[in-house]
């Protein structure tokens, strides 16, 4: 009896034990390295494709601004939901977050954008606003007349026979300028985002 009492007192009178008892703490909580945090710049050159903005599901979370060093994506904390789609959609690997880039490289996957333009021929008036506004057309044929008619067939959009025709949809950059300039809501651009496994064209990591 007396012996066990002494044993008890010796057990609980230790300074080490008392410290542990009074200052019990779980292990310090750190954010693990694989956590998809807000995307950060990797220092690679942004080519202003704006795929990050197109893929972003949260309104006002990302924009691409012009800095003295060139184009640069900017993340808005408080809007960003840290989904990492901008990181995956970027063709140049400008952004990085968590282990997204590493796993993309290991799995050999990437997100690729393609664009489909549909013209509702019943609504199209053949005004040519879309063809004139299109920035891709502007690069190919800067002399395009106001009605959207041109002599060359290399254009993305062209008006012939009183209707707008899509000639080279693969040249589309998905900016939707034509959609915004159509007075009759006849033209619409669909942005198709698909995940591609082992893409033929090498991703940014090469």
């Amino acid at each position: 009896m007396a012996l066990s009492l002494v044993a008890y007192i010796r057990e609980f009178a230790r300074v080490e034990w008392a410290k542990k008892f009074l200052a019990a703490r779980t292990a310090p909580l750190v954010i693990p390295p694989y956590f998809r945090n807000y995307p950060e710049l990797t220092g690679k050159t942004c080519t202003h494709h704006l795929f990050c903005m197109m893929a972003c599901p949260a309104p006002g979370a990302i924009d691409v601004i012009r800095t003295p060093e060139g184009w640069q994506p900017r993340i808005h904390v408080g809007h960003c939901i840290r989904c990492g789609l901008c990181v995956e959609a970027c063709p140049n690997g400008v952004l990085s977050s968590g282990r997204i880039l590493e796993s993309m490289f290991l799995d050999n996957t990437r997100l690729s954008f393609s664009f489909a333009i549909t013209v509702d021929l019943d609504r199209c008036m053949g005004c040519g606003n879309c063809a004139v506004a299109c920035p891709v057309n502007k690069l190919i044929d800067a002399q395009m007349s106001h009605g959207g008619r041109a002599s060359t067939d290399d254009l993305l959009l062209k008006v012939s026979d009183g209707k707008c025709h899509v000639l080279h949809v693969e040249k589309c950059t998905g900016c939707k300028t034509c959609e915004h300039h159509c007075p009759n809501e006849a033209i619409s651009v669909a942005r198709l985002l698909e995940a591609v496994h082992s893409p033929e064209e090498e991703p940014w990591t090469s």
Partner: protein
Amino acid sequence: MTILQKVKNFVRSRSIHVAYVDVGSCNGCDIEVLACLSPRYDIEQYGIFVHNNPREADILLVIGAYTPGWEEKLRGLWEKIPPPKAAIAIGNCPISGCLFARPHTLVDPPVAKHIPIAAQVPGCPPRPTEILSAILSVAPTIFADYEVKTK
């Protein structure tokens, strides 16, 4: 500063009573706040205690993008909290409305328009660690020397 004031500051930094209110979120941030209660994060080791009663609370966690149903209620709830008090916005919704802030929706973010917000924890949802560190950094600074400041 008197010794009594020092004792008060210490006790207040080790006894933070929290109430949370969801003014219309998707429940993602509610789950993260509840995760703080779990043994892994264990907020009671820091002296944080969740009452969910504004009359007993020091800190109000506001979650969600302020739906119209809260127009009359949130202000009253804030006024029920006895001073010293602070409100912390948890998640993107009370800051910007996040995904809900689109045309033709009824939400009215930010919550800072309706009650004074002391700190914001962005994220959709924020990690429990971020919520914890926000509470632990805001509460002692706001509650310290409350009597001296209000005199």
